[in-house]
């Protein structure tokens, strides 16, 4: 890690300098959502980026509503929204709804998914669900020090290939990996990096067919809808809030407020 500290001291390394904006959210270029399982360190990442002091605690469920803050990096201004930690986006508790609605209706430019490096398999369940919702994501592989302590060897490049999004190993409590994370967020936000998340298919052909035909119908009515497949799945599930969004036409507004480059 010593080499990294040396690099971090070099002015060339920091030329794109992070400026913490705190609560100053004027003239925002990009909106960043912070999502992830409970107790993975989302609020710590949030504090590192924004310079705010959102309360952190070592227990799942600390953040129940969303907090907002800002930072500026490489001459662009970012707004960060810290979402409640959830294990999935499929059930309907209030905290999960807050997280899901923001990723779906708030249409963040980049969703940063904070993952506990010591519990990758369980965390991936949420990651895959989020990648159904949005294609533009960065995986922040946090708590790498604990993974090392636990003798876990993680193939970061392989993980990035499998998920089709940048994967950045971090130790947020010690600010390690934050510069790389900022760069990755920037590249996804301005379209330099194009994410290609996997398409999950069920084993049931009947289901795959139903989802395909329904997404086609959705795309007919709402061209450019970014997450038609996910909406189709939720409709099949009978998710009331999504049915309501389709009925009221709120869904149709989604593609209009999509700034930046479409992946």
């Amino acid at each position, binding site marked *: 890690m010593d080499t990294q500290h040396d690099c971090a001291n070099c002015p060339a390394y920091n030329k794109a300098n992070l400026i913490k904006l705190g609560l100053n959210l004027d003239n925002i270029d990009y909106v960043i959502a912070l999502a992830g399982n*409970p107790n993975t360190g989302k609020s710590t990442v949030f504090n590192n980026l924004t310079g705010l002091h959102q309360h952190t*605690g070592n227990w799942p469920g600390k953040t129940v509503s969303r907090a907002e803050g800002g930072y500026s990096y490489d001459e662009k201004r970012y707004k960060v929204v810290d979402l409640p930690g959830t294990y999935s986006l499929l059930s309907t508790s209030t*905290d999960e709804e807050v997280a899901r609605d923001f990723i779906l209706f708030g249409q963040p430019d980049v969703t940063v998914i904070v993952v506990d490096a010591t519990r990758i398999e369980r965390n991936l369940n949420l990651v895959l669900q989020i990648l159904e919702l949005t294609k533009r994501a960065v995986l922040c592989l946090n708590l790498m020090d604990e993974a090392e302590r636990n003798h876990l060897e993680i193939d970061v490049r392989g993980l990035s290939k499998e998920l089709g999004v940048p994967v950045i190993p971090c130790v947020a409590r010690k600010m390690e990996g934050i510069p790389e994370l900022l760069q990755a967020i920037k590249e996804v936000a301005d379209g330099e990096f194009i994410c290609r998340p996997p398409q999950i298919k069920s084993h049931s052909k009947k*289901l795959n067919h139903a989802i395909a035909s329904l997404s086609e119908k959705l795309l007919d009515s709402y061209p450019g809808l970014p997450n038609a497949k996910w909406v189709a799945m939720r409709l099949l599930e009978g998710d009331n809030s999504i049915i309501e969004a389709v*009925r009221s036409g709120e869904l149709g507004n989604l593609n209009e407020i999509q700034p930046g480059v479409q992946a």
Partner: protein
Amino acid sequence: MSNNRTKGEDIIAAANSARWELGTNYHDSLIESIYGEASRISRNTVKQKGDKQAYSFDLKIDKIVTSRWLGFPIMFILLALVFWITVSGANYPSGLLASLLIDTLHPMLKDLATTIHMPWWLSGVLIDGAYLSMAWVIAVMLPPMAIFFPIFTLLEDLGYLPRVAFNMDNLFRKAGAHGKQALTMSMGFGCNAAGVVAARVIDSPRERLIAIITNNFSLCNGRWPTQILIATIFIGSLVPAKIAGLVSAGAVVTVALLGIFFSLAVSWGLSKTVLKGEASSFSLELPPYRPPQVLQTLYTSLIDRTMIVLWRAVVFAVPAGIIIWLVANIHVGDLSLAEYFIEWSNPFALVFGLNGVILLAYIIAIPANEIVIPTVLMLTVLSTGMSDIGAGSGVMFETDSIGNTASILHAGGWTLLTGINLMLFSLLHNPCSTTIMTIYKETRSVKWTLVSTFLPILLGLIVTFFTTQVWYLFHG
């Protein structure tokens, strides 16, 4: 838009018919495919080198702090330790702040008011009412909060709270409530409004409502000073001075435990009657112990938590101070408004081992529990006509020492019974106005807000009534 609407209905209809065709195991098959994919990716990218030795230390600690026999004693000892540090550490800075804000600054302000010929009622309302109540709240609240919040936050950072939840889970489940209620209850020890908001982590609306209604049984930060002061005066004074601090802390812990008991009992009662249902199961992660970040914790808990709570208290204390001054100084005939209420409610209050002063203090202190004790003192002086103590009628004052406070209360006819009942009533009464507002915001229900408000008062009256009757049985 209307075009969208019909298109929307088409899509919903298509989804409905497809759902019928797919049958009921659709949801499972979808989740299965996600889990399958997650496990495949993690198999390909994560390797375990050697054994998992690193966690064995965590496991050893967990075996002790969550063990069947040691879990609860360790919890109580930690709790007592936190209070003891808070009680003994807060005394000196509190006195210092009081002598600065009240003994020094207050007379200076009064002198200033006289020099600029401020009318007596204006200087009364502003300096004896608003300023003094604010000064009291700062003197009484700031030191304990500045000690209590950081210690509590350090425990939280370390990862102890989920262990508390783990220990309590079984009890809450037996009471028909959600195990996570142990977490919201712990948050309530800091601030009930925060505890009510924290109940969002509970998925089931039934269990969430139970957690919200019972959160008030967690003694909050605004009530700790009352408990500590009364315990020191009436219970600590019964034993030799050497162990008085410990005994007082023990009395406060007892009241806090009583609160946990009521939390469980009321949860049980609700889940057997109006909020019937089975407790839902959940999986609670016990996160690894992490060394707390001491400096950051201090900063966060001091600047964010302490200052925010203190600011709120000050905001509520200022108008309350004005009201206290007014009811004590507006006379109808021979008596002030306060004296009318105290005389009128005294017979009723005595049945519960309280007195009219305490009842009026609690009505005035609905906005913020912190100002109960200063209000009680001021009203006691007023109603017993002790004109030589304090700064005169209608002035909330800090007395020089706890012994001085004791002599005022004894002169006002207070006994050990009054002290015990005040501690009980301080545990069991309506939540403060902020909490009530938060409950309404979270539940969106007038009915449940009213239940959360009045249920604790009812319980408080029942408990103090029985305590009083039992007391008279032995001391009558």
